[in-house]
């Protein structure tokens, strides 16, 4: 088993910042990521420099068999790594909301379609509707257009007034303002507008009292982001952190979107703080607290502006699929009071994604929160589980 002073789980902005900070202090650092290359979602496909750290890509953390150890699985192998300090920088995923037709193959996430296009999926000349909520929609539309897509419109569910207030608040964050300004001139951006149904090759949208259908080759649809807390829950009972980004388990830190959605700059400064602290240099971490506090204001502005509207809770009819792994429809879930009962009776959330998709949906629609996590945190091969004979951890 390879041993490191600091292992960082996740090679996005927070993880890379943590790795650089810890390596700069002389720690032996490894960064683990399940994508084929470092960069996370935001820098997917871009060259990322990470001197003085070992980068283990294409490897998914599936279990934590004991304190100081993680079980990793790659396409054709499994192994353990050991750490003295761990930084969890597992990022976020999109929140998907169920509506009639959302399981059709031409409906993808907003960030989802962007990731697919960056990975080679052809988009030139395709007509795309981008819908859902949050500043990510704007970035996605921009990226798709640059790659040759015809973006018919961006449908933002938040009200125009809230989005305008957010745009003004962005003045504190010049990099983001430039991106927003660049896009607005070229793409139809409708606030107070959301999808109510998808049909093959089309989407039906609603705005005010008007409902109409737009033809599209793809509907790229995501309603904000949800932190990927599964590994943090397994290792540390959650992603809540103190001022040094340390979880309730000593030596285990969390940074970036996993601790709450706050954007690129906040993720980077949290990562840097966690990296210094994990390398035992908390005095250097403390110098960054002021910067972190400034970027945290952006997180608050973001949450306020893009709150999901109540109407979205009623999009799913009884016949609408909610759990895409086990094909459980909304009507089957309504009789139950929460996750425990629903899982037992319907298998909702018990398929391959382990509730990562329907969890975010039902948290909003029914107010159900998925709390517990069991290893393996991702489906793993039997051979992978066998390398940790004393169990998979998480018995806390």
């Amino acid at each position, binding site marked *: 088993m390879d041993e490191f002073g600091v292992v960082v789980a996740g090679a996005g902005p927070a993880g890379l910042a943590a790795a650089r900070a810890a390596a700069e202090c002389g720690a032996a650092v490894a960064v683990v990521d*399940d*994508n*084929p290359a470092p960069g996370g*979602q935001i820098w997917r*496909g871009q060259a990322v420099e990470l001197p003085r750290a070992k980068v283990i890509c*294409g490897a*998914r953390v599936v279990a934590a068999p004991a304190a100081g150890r993680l079980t990793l699985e790659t*396409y054709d192998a499994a192994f353990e790594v050991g750490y003295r300090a761990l930084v969890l920088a597992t990022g976020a*995923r*999109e929140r*998907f909301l169920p509506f009639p037709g959302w*399981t*059709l*193959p*031409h*409906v*993808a*996430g907003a*960030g*989802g*379609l*962007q*990731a*697919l296009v960056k*990975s*080679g*999926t*052809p988009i030139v000349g395709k007509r795309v509707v981008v819908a859902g909520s949050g500043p990510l929609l704007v970035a996605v539309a921009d990226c798709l257009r640059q790659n040759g897509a015809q973006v018919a419109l961006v449908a933002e569910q938040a009200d125009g007034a809230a989005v305008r207030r957010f745009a003004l608040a962005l003045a504190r964050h010049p990099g983001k303002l430039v991106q927003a300004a660049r896009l607005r001139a070229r793409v139809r951006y409708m606030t107070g507008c959301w999808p109510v149904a998808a049909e093959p090759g089309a989407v039906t949208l609603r705005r005010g009292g008007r409902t109409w259908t737009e033809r599209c080759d793809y509907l790229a649809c995501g309603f904000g982001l949800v932190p*990927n807390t599964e590994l943090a829950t397994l290792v540390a009972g959650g992603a809540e952190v103190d001022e040094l980004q340390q979880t309730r388990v000593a030596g285990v830190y969390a940074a970036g979107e996993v601790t709450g959605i706050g954007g690129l700059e906040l993720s980077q400064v949290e990562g840097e703080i966690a990296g210094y602290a994990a390398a035992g240099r908390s005095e250097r971490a403390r110098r960054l607290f002021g910067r972190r506090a400034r970027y945290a204001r952006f997180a608050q502005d973001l949450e306020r502006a893009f709150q999901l509207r109540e109407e979205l809770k009623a999009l799913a009819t009884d016949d609408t*699929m909610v759990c*895409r*792994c*086990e*094909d459980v429809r909304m009507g089957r879930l309504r009789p139950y009071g929460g996750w425990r009962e629903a899982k037992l009776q319907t298998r909702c959330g018990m*398929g*391959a*994604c382990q509730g*990562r*998709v329907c969890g975010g949906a039902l948290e909003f629609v029914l107010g159900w929160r998925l709390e517990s996590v069991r290893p393996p945190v991702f*489906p793993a091969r039997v051979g992978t589980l066998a390398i940790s004979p004393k169990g998979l951890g998480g018995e806390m």
Partner: protein
Amino acid sequence: MKVRVNGRAVEVPEGAMVSAAVALAGEAAFRRSVTGEARGPLCGMGICFECRVTVDGRAQVRSCQTPCRDGMEVRTDG
């Protein structure tokens, strides 16, 4: 780089994922759900498991996180 998708040869760009090869082959449905619905990639980042295909005989491979290799055989269940 060339891969085969359901027996059909597809030219894929350097660095492309298997999900791109399937799309380039013109397949919209990557898998069938437990009740037989056609499904395609949703999250694009290894979370949702909707893009699973068979690669070189291995089932349940997430195509969005698997880089294409020359000569790869990909099978969808669409």
